[in-house]
């Protein structure tokens, strides 16, 4: 029974991993670019939620929307002011741009919010429910389910809407997309907004259920690398599937070997993947 509870807990956390990782994979798929600050976007989403609750009030819907919106704007701004200039530049500039940004955001957060762990004041979402003998904290349950729905929503948006097909067109062939009257720069800015927005709302969901400090950004960023590598670079369904698996692996390794091993096992999985299946579990060989 305990094991079952661990498994469900891992899957619910994994659902949130899936959501923010789908943001990372979107950028990779579209412009072959890895955002080293993605975890910091999630972390900022958590603090935005806290600030909204503290200063504006309102329930999960309010701070969820607030975090998504704030990070969407940040994503667009980061693209327009930084990424667009390094995208076709040397590898050094590509890597350092977001690596530096990660440091900047992480340590600014340390400076403003201190290294202490915080959590949201109790919201209307609290308590546990008993599902067939498994005790589920309601916040985790709600956050996990919403995260899955949003990830599926993002996938549907990318595959079934005009905006989605325009984004896809840019990622496949910039030149051809331009001939079709699509503005690649605008589409890429939108992709950064969506990517960061997904991270922001994932942060808000995470904040409902778990305490955090500014250092979580680094862990989430690396976790997202693993999820994206496992699911296949560029694939949102892959990220969903892989996010759940990574959440599960983490929960089980914490359960069996001790909490300290949860990240070690996941990072080791990353190295193993690079050796065995760099295209991801779901990618084509």
């Amino acid at each position, binding site marked *: 029974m305990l094991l079952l509870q661990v498994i469900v807990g891992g899957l619910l956390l994994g659902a949130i991993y899936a959501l923010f990782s789908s943001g990372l994979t979107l950028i990779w798929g579209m412009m072959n670019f890895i955002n080293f600050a993605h975890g910091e976007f999630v972390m900022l989403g958590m603090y935005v939620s806290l600030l909204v609750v503290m200063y504006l009030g309102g329930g999960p819907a309010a701070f969820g929307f607030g975090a998504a919106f704030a990070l969407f704007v940040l994503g667009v701004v980061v693209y327009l002011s930084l990424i667009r200039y390094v995208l076709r530049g040397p590898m050094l500039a590509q890597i350092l741009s977001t690596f530096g940004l990660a440091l*900047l955001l992480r340590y600014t957060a340390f400076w403003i919010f201190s290294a202490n762990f915080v959590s949201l004041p109790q919201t209307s979402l609290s308590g546990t429910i008993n599902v067939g003998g498994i005790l589920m904290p309601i916040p985790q349950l709600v956050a996990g389910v919403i995260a899955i729905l949003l990830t599926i929503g993002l996938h549907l948006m990318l595959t079934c809407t005009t905006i989605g097909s325009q984004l896809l067109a840019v990622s496949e062939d910039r030149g051809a997309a331009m001939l079709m009257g699509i503005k690649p720069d605008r589409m890429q800015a939108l992709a950064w907004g969506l990517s960061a927005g997904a991270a922001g709302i994932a942060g808000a969901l995470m904040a409902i259920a778990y305490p955090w400090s500014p250092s979580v950004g680094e862990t989430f960023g690396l976790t997202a690398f693993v999820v994206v590598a496992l699911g296949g670079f560029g694939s949102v369904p892959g990220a969903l599937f892989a996010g759940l698996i990574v959440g599960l692996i983490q929960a089980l390794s914490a359960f069996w070997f001790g909490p300290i091993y949860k990240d070690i096992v996941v990072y080791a999985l990353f190295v193993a993947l*690079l050796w065995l299946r760099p295209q991801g579990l779901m990618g084509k060989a």
Partner: protein
Amino acid sequence: MNKIPALSPTVLLAVALLIYPLIFSGAFYLDVGVTFLLAAISASAWNIVGGYAGQVSVGHAMFFGLGAYAPLLCYKLYGWTPMAGIPFGIAASVALAILIGIPTFRLTGHYFSMATIAVAELIRIYFGTWDLVGAAIGLQGPATARGWWDLTFRSELPYYYIFLTVLAVLLSFTYLMERHRFGYYLRAIKVGERAARSLGVPVQQTKIRALVLSAMFTSVAGSLYSVKTGFIDPESGFGILVSVQMVIIAALGGAGRLYGPLIGALILIPLQTATNTWFGGGGTGLTFIVYGGIIVLIARYEPGGIYDLWEQISPRRWRRKHAS
């Protein structure tokens, strides 16, 4: 024929570094000097793979840390002189370099960067739980020297000259590398991997060699650090600051340039010392913010660092240099 103008700044620099401790003999200045040399060594080591080969490692602390732990672990386990651990650190770093290089260098450069940061973090966390290496507390060297071979000196002066020697060896190596086929191949790979392969450059093998060399020297830098301080823990060995320092110093000065890391260290180390003195311990968080900002600015405006900036300002010098 251009040997003389190319050499004279080098001679000036060498003389300046040689006599620095004689002029600034106070403990504080000596400490700054030693810190500068260590930073320059680490960043120059990073430069081989990150600068010349253009494969940007953001987790080089893994090699530094292995190099740092090895001497003190040898001392702890067998009571050997810490020096005896240096080859073990190098061996472990080479093995790790190959482990990471082989799978990632087949893919685009992003994979390598991601792998380096993930592995560095993995090792840092793992060492924090591993009792053999003192877990979170870390390891210590000999409290008092049993002989000169323990390399445990009261004064910083011997360290200064040891570090200076290592830096000289590393820079000479890099200088020769630049002029060797290997150096040409690295530069070619950096700007055009596909074209390089079409000309018969063994890209994968060349990149792995660069990483192995870089890892070896970084490991030595780590060993020097722990032998000098007589102490190492997961954060000072494998922490992100260690990696960030190498990256920022090399990139600020000029990645892929012989003296780039030296220039970077010359600017950053005094700056860092000053902020630490003014702000005390609370300055470290602020240091990171400033570092992050500088890194972003380099990426956005001048990926070639100060070296490139300088060349743009003085194009005539540049042409003469390239006429060699």
